């Protein structure tokens, strides 16, 4: 698996990428608070925010198609929950506002995560006084997602090459044992990482 399937464009070079991570994070939060808090009366401020995001996207050189695809990928969740709003009085208007707000917020988060390397986001969390245990665990997790997903794909491939047909009744127990195996390997890896950390004088 490609190790960059999560935030592929986060380390491009552009003015947006070069901007301090703290500034980007806080302004993203600010923009999103604005999106949520603005009264649903006039679409004009929202159009302004959309234009701002579009300008930043173009300046960042992240392929717009990539961001559009990600938004489309997540839109079904928005629509599924938003559909519940459709069933109320003036549901259509309500739904339109929800869809507008969440699409703009989605674009903001995607822009932030694709213009800021994860390590920089972690540094922001550290500076915001998030407890060290939390930030370290987060860093550790991000580091090993890719390795574990490779591990899972290998396990699945090995399983597939040894079984001919997939029957539903068996596949649940088979998949569960793949997950069990994956957990054991993760725990074993955690133990080895700990030994390696000790060996390098951690703490």
């Amino acid at each position: 698996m490609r190790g960059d399937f999560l935030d592929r464009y986060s380390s491009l070079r552009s003015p947006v990428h070069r901007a301090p991570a703290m500034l980007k994070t806080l302004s993203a939060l600010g923009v999103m608070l604005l999106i949520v808090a603005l009264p649903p009366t006039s679409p004009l401020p929202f159009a302004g925010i959309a234009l701002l995001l579009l300008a930043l996207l173009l300046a960042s050189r992240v392929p717009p198609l990539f961001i559009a695809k990600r938004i489309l990928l997540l839109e079904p969740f928005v629509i599924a929950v938003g559909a519940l709003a459709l069933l109320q009085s003036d549901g259509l208007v309500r739904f339109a506002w929800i869809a507008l707000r969440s699409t703009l917020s989605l674009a903001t988060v995607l822009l932030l995560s694709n213009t800021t390397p994860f390590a920089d986001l972690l540094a922001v969390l550290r500076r915001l006084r998030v407890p060290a245990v939390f930030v370290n665990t987060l860093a550790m997790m991000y580091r090993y997602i890719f390795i574990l997903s490779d591990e899972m794909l290998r396990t699945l491939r090995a399983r597939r090459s040894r079984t001919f047909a997939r029957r539903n009744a068996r596949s649940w127990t088979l998949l569960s044992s793949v997950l069990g195996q994956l957990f054991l390997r993760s725990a074993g890896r955690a133990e080895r990482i700990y030994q390696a950390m000790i060996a390098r004088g951690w703490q």
Partner: protein
Amino acid sequence: MHIPDGFLDTKTIAVTSVLAAAGVSRALRNVSRRSDPRQIPLMGLAAAFVFVAQMLNFPVLGGTSGHLLGGVLIAVLLGLDAAVVVMTIVLVVQCLLFADGGLLALGANIFNMAVVATVAGYTVYAGVRRVLPAAYGRFVGAACGAWASTVLASVCCTGELVWSGTVAWELGIPAMSGIHMVIGAGEAVITGLVLVALTKLRPELLDAGSPGSAAAAGTGWKDVLIHGSLLTIALALFVAPFASGWPDGLETVAAALGFDARALSAPVLPAPVADYRVPGIGSLPVATALAGVIGAVLVFGVSLAVFRAIQPKSLPRRQE
């Protein structure tokens, strides 16, 4: 169940963020107090495991598929506090890198899926373990806990959406909780089966001396108190006002005292569903609650039968 941004209003965002911060910081404090340096790599890898495990789809009837959520599984394996931290971290990464679940709604999502779901699921697990001390009780307990965690998280999620005025309680509760009673059954089976597989692969893992034994070690009265009050706040804030006749009661009191009921209900609870009535639908939440009770009994009965039948052969011998 990841709430995207734009669905919650500012007041709900603020309240859920505070509640989530309270729950997670308590878990973090407990984890650091245990001061086992192994915990950091173990929790990091467990979080990566949950993230990856959620990508593995289990085929369900009709070409659809479900996946593990994992909170109760991790709570059984690593202990409750570590599980709260692990699930929080998974949600943070999903939000920041996948934009799955909103950034402002992160507090709500953490509160529902990392705090309420894990704490409630683990409580159910511990309760079932007490009733069923047999070895297979662990699988039954984990399955029931997993089901309860999914359903409760969805109820909280609905409550927050209703509180924000996004959906109506009469429709939200049957739709969301109904779906999650089914999804929860899948979560129950997967959680139980993974534990069975782990017991077969490494029987000693779940016994004393393993990281999981920290789970059994101690939930003191203080933890029980904090968990209890967190869950109570959640229910009181997000469920009770809508589920019971509470707002009506308030209005009655207000009327009796001579207040204008409208003036009261507008700022305190901007009741979005106040004048929302569909004939015959008013009893749906009650029917859903009833379905929930029946579902809980069913999940317990079925998992009892299934996991007693498929428990690893090595277990009874080792118990003697």
